C-alpha cells in the first residue's frame, strides 16, 4: 500500500514531471536497499515465495496468500522446503545407491560394497555373547528384590537415568585408559551424538552466527548443524603437507574474514580423533586452541566420538584431560561422545554432551525432552557398561582388530599406487587417488567417484563432500568388511584404476 499511494499521486498529475520520474526511481532504489538489508538468511525456496517479499508490507502479500484459487497446494516452511530437496551430495547419493543394490557374498555378489558408512562390525560377536549371557537380568529395572518393569515404563529424567550417567562416566574413563575421571553430573544423555551436536549449537550460537570447522570434516555436520539451528559452518582448510593438521594461524584468518563479512563466530568445532582423516590432535595444539578460544572469547566443541577407536601409537589426549590439569576457563569447553562407533551400537541411539558450563548443562538438560534415550536401552547399557571386565576386553580386542584390517586395507591400496594419509584412529582411511582423476579439480574427483560407484561398485566418500580443498582424496570405511572382502575391493578398484591411467 505504501508503495502504491505516492505513485498514485504522481499519476494523477500532482507531482509534475520531475517528481513523476524522480519519485519512482528513488522508491525503486530504496526498495532494493531495504530488501537487501532485510533478506532472510535462509535461501529462498520455490514454495515460500513470500520470504522474497519481506520488504513489502504484509497486507499485499497476505491478500495474495488467502485467495485459494491462485495458490495451489498448502505449503511447508522455507526451512522444510530446503530439507525436502532431493539429496545432491555424493555422501547421500552413494548411500541411496547402496541401499538399492547392496553387496551380499551369496545373494548379490555383484552388488555395491559399502565403504561410505563409518560402521564397525568387527567386535559384534563379543557383544552378542555378552547379551545372550546377561540380557534377561539387565532389561528389567530392579524394584527392591523383584524384577519389575516400572523401572523402564514410567517417565524418567529426560537427560538420562543417573545410573547410566555414572556407568557412562566410568566407561569414558576406561576408554581413556583411566587418564581422567568424568563427573556424572556434567553428563547430559541424548538419543545419539547427532542431537547432542545440534543441542550444543542451539545453546552456544544464534541463528546467523558461525562455527569454525577444520576441514576436511564429517559431511553429516552440514545437515546436523545447519538444518534447524541456522548456524553457519566456516571450513578452515588443512593441507596434506601438514598431514591435514590445523593451524591457529588459519583459524585466526578465518575468524577475521568472518568478522569482515559481519558474521559472528561463536566457537570452533573439532573432531578428535579426526573424521575423515583419522589423525589425532597433539597436546600442544589443544593448548594453543584453548588459548585462541580464550583470546576471542568463544567456545570449543570437541567431538571425541572415535576416542575408543585408536589403533596407532600416537597419544590421544582428550580435552577433559587438559582441563583436569588446568584450573581456569572451563566454561567454554564442551565434549561430544557416543556409543555408535566405539561400542558399535548405533541403533541404540546413545550420545553424550559433557560440559563444564552450568548454564549450558541446564539448558541442554531441558532440551533433551526432544531426544531422550529409550528406558529399556538405558537399562541394558547400565548393565553392559558397568561390566568393566567385559568393557576392557572389548576395547582392547576392538583396537587390535581395527589395526589388523587397517594394515591389510592400506597395504592393498599401496599395491595400486594409492597412498593413505598418516592416521592412527577411526574406522576409515583417507586415500589419495589424485593420480587417478582426469583433471585436478572437484569435477575430476567426482568423475572418479562416479566410476568407483557405478563401475567398480564401491561406495566411497569423495573429499569434496567433506569440504577438502585438495581434490582426489577419498574416505574409505573398512570396519564393516571381513579380511576376505579386502582383495575383492582392491580388485574392483584396480579395474577402474587401469582405465584411468
Amino acid at each position, binding site marked *: 500500500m505504501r508503495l502504491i499511494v505516492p505513485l498514485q499521486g504522481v499519476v494523477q498529475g500532482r507531482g509534475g514531471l520531475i517528481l513523476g520520474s524522480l519519485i519512482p526511481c528513488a522508491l525503486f532504489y530504496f526498495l532494493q536497499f531495504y530488501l537487501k538489508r532485510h533478506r532472510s538468511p535462509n535461501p529462498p525456496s520455490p514454495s515460500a515465495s513470500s520470504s522474497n517479499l519481506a520488504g513489502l508490507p504484509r497486507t499485499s502479500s497476505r491478500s495474495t496468500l488467502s485467495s485459494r484459487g491462485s495458490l495451489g497446494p498448502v505449503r511447508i516452511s522455507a526451512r522444510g522446503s530446503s530439507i525436502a530437496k532431493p539429496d545432491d551430495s555424493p555422501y547421500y547419493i552413494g548411500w541411496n545407491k547402496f541401499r538399492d543394490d547392496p553387496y551380499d557374498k551369496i545373494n548379490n555378489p555383484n552388488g555395491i560394497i559399502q565403504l561410505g558408512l563409518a560402521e564397525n562390525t568387527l567386535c559384534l560377536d563379543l557383544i552378542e555373547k555378552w547379551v545372550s549371557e546377561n540380557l534377561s537380568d539387565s532389561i528389567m529395572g530392579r524394584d527392591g528384590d523383584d524384577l519389575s518393569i516400572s523401572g523402564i*515404563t514410567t517417565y524418567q529424567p529426560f537427560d538420562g537415568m543417573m545410573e547410566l550417567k555414572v556407568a557412562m562416566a566410568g566407561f569414558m574413563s576406561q576408554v581413556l585408559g583411566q587418564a581422567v575421571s568424568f563427573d556424572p553430573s556434567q553428563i547430559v544423555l541424548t538419543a545419539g551424538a547427532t542431537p547432542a551436536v545440534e543441542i550444543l549449537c542451539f545453546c552456544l550460537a544464534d541463528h546467523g552466527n558461525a562455527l569454525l570447522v577444520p576441514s576436511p570434516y564429517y559431511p553429516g555436520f552440514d545437515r546436523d548443524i545447519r538444518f534447524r539451528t541456522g548456524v553457519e559452518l566456516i571450513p578452515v582448510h588443512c593441507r596434506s603437507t601438514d598431514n591435514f593438521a590445523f593451524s591457529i594461524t588459519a583459524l585466526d584468518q578465518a575468524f577475521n574474514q568472518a568478522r569482515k563479512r559481519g558474521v559472528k563466530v561463536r566457537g570452533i568445532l573439532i573432531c578428535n580423533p579426526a573424521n575423515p582423516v583419522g589423525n589425532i590432535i597433539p597436546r600442544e595444539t589443544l593448548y594453543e586452541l584453548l588459548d585462541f578460544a580464550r583470546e576471542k572469547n568463544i567456545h570449543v566443541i570437541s567431538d571425541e566420538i572415535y576416542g575408543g577407536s585408536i589403533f596407532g601409537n600416537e597419544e590421544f589426549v582428550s580435552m577433559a584431560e587438559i582441563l583436569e590439569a588446568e584450573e581456569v576457563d572451563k566454561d567454554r569447553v564442551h565434549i561430544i561422545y557416543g556409543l555408535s562407533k566405539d561400542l*558399535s551400537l548405533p541403533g541404540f541411539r546413545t550420545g553424550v554432551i559433557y560440559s563444564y558450563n552450568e548454564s549450558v548443562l541446564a539448558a541442554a538438560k531441558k532440551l533433551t525432552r526432544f531426544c*531422550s534415550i529409550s528406558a529399556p536401552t538405558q537399562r541394558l547399557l547400565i548393565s553392559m557398561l558397568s561390566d568393566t571386565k567385559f568393557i576392557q576386553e572389548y576395547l582392547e580386542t576392538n583396537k587390535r582388530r581395527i589395526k589388523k584390517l587397517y594394515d591389510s586395507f592400506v597395504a592393498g591400496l599401496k599395491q595400486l599406487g594409492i597412498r593413505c594419509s598418516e592416521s592412527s584412529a577411526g574406522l576409515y582411511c583417507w586415500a589419495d587417488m589424485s593420480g587417478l582423476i582426469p583433471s585436478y579439480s572437484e569435477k575430476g574427483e567426482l568423475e572418479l567417484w562416479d566410476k568407483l560407484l557405478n563401475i567398480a561398485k564401491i561406495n566411497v566418500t569423495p573429499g569434496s563432500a567433506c569440504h577438502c580443498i585438495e581434490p582426489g582424496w577419498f574416505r574409505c570405511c573398512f570396519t564393516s568388511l571381513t579380511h576376505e572382502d579386502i582383495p575383492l575391493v582392491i580388485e574392483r578398484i584396480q579395474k577402474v584404476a587401469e582405465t584411468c591411467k
Partner: protein
Amino acid sequence: MAIEIEQPSVSVGLSKVAVSETHGEDSPYFAGWKAYDENPYEESTNPSGVIQMGLAENQVSFDLLEEYLEQQPEASTWGKGAPGFRENALFQDYHGLKSFRQAMASFMEQIRGGRAKFDLNRIVVTAGATAANELLTFILADPGDALLVPTPYYPGFDRDLRWRTGIKIVPIHCDSSNNFQITPQALEAAYKEAESKDVRVRGVLITNPSNPLGATIQRSVLEELLDFATRKNIHLVSDEIYSGSAFSSSEFVSIAEILEARQYKDSERVHIVYSLSKDLGLPGFRVGTIYSYNDKVVTTARRMSSFTLISSQTQYLLASMLSNKKFTENYIKTNRERLQKRYQMIIEGLRSAGIECLKGNAGLFCWMNLSPLLEEQTREGELALWDSMLHEVKLNISPGSSCHCSEPGWFRVCFANMSEQTLEVALKRIHNFMQKRERRRN
C-alpha cells in the same frame, strides 16, 4: 591456603535459545511438580506428603504389560543366542524398523475400531510425541509464523511448539458456555487476531481427545476444522495421543475417519501425532509417531527424525508386542474400562464434596470447576486457591491459567497415575478441605 582464581572479566556468551524463558519451567505447572519432588506422598512412609495429580501418566493397566513381558521373554531378549541382535544393534535407518511401523499402523487402526486405515509408509518415528510436535512445527512453519491452538491447552505446548522453532501460538478462545467446544466464530477471531498483528498463520493444532478437558471433539467440529483449514489453505495437526484412552471406542472420532469419508480430498494438509506414552503407559520408552498425508512432509520429517530416533531395541520389542493382536485387543478394552471406572470414582467423590467437573469421556484427568471457591474471579484468585491446594491440602493439581484457560477457577486433576487407595486419600483430603470452608463461612 585459599587459591585465588582470576575470574574472566567477560564470560563466554550463550545463545538466545539457551537463556530464553520459553522452556516455561518457572510456571505453576512445573512449580507444583517441584513441591511434589521435595515431599512425595507415600502410603506407608510419608502419608502426609504431596499427592501428585498434575502428571498425566497411566498406571492403571501396568499389570497387563508386566504379564506380557514376563511371558514373552523372546520379545525383549532377541531369543536364545541373540539372533537378530547384530542387525538390530546396527540399525539406525531414519525410515524406522518396517515391522515396527507395520505394528504401529495396525495398533492405531485397532484403537479406531477399524474405522480408518493407516499406511505404514506414512509413519515417521520420533522419540516421543513431544519431539513429533516440535518436528512438525519446524516443517510447517517458519520463525515468526503462528499456529492456532484452542484453549485450554496442554501447558507443554508453549515450550514444545515455540522454544527452538521461533513460532508463536495464537489461542482459539473456548469457554464453558458450550463446554469449551471450538466454534467457527472462535476460529475466525483467532485468525483475524493473527492478521492484525501481521503474523502469518500456518496451521491449527488440536488435541483430540482434549488435554486438559478430558473430552473427545465432536464429528461436526472436526468437519468445521477441516473446512476452515481448507478455506485458509493451512495445515491441520491432530494430536491424538489420548485416542486409546477414550472410555468408549465409538465416542472417539479421528480426523482420519473424516478424511476417509471425503475420499482423502484435501488431505495433504492433515498430520496426526501419536505416542505410546499415555494409551500404553510407556512414557519411558520414548515412542512417538507422525502420520502425514503429505508426501513432502513425510520425506522431510523422516530426514529430520535423525535428531530423535527410537532405539532399535525398543522398536524391535514393540513390533512384537503391538502385532500380538490378542494382547492389544485385551489391553485396549481393559484399559478403557479401568479408566472409565477411575473417572466415575473421582467424579462421584468430587460431587459429594460439592465440586462439579466438565462432562468428560476420555483421558487420564478430569476438568474440575472450582470457580465458586475463588475469592476473586481472576487469575490471581485462581493461583491463590492453587497455592492452598498445594500447601494446605497437599495436592498438586494444574491451574487452568497455565493451560491458558480464559475463565479462572478451572483445574486439571489427573487420576490414573496412582493406586485406588491413593485416589481415595486425595478425595478425602478434598472433602475435608471443602467441609472446613463451609464451617468457616457459617
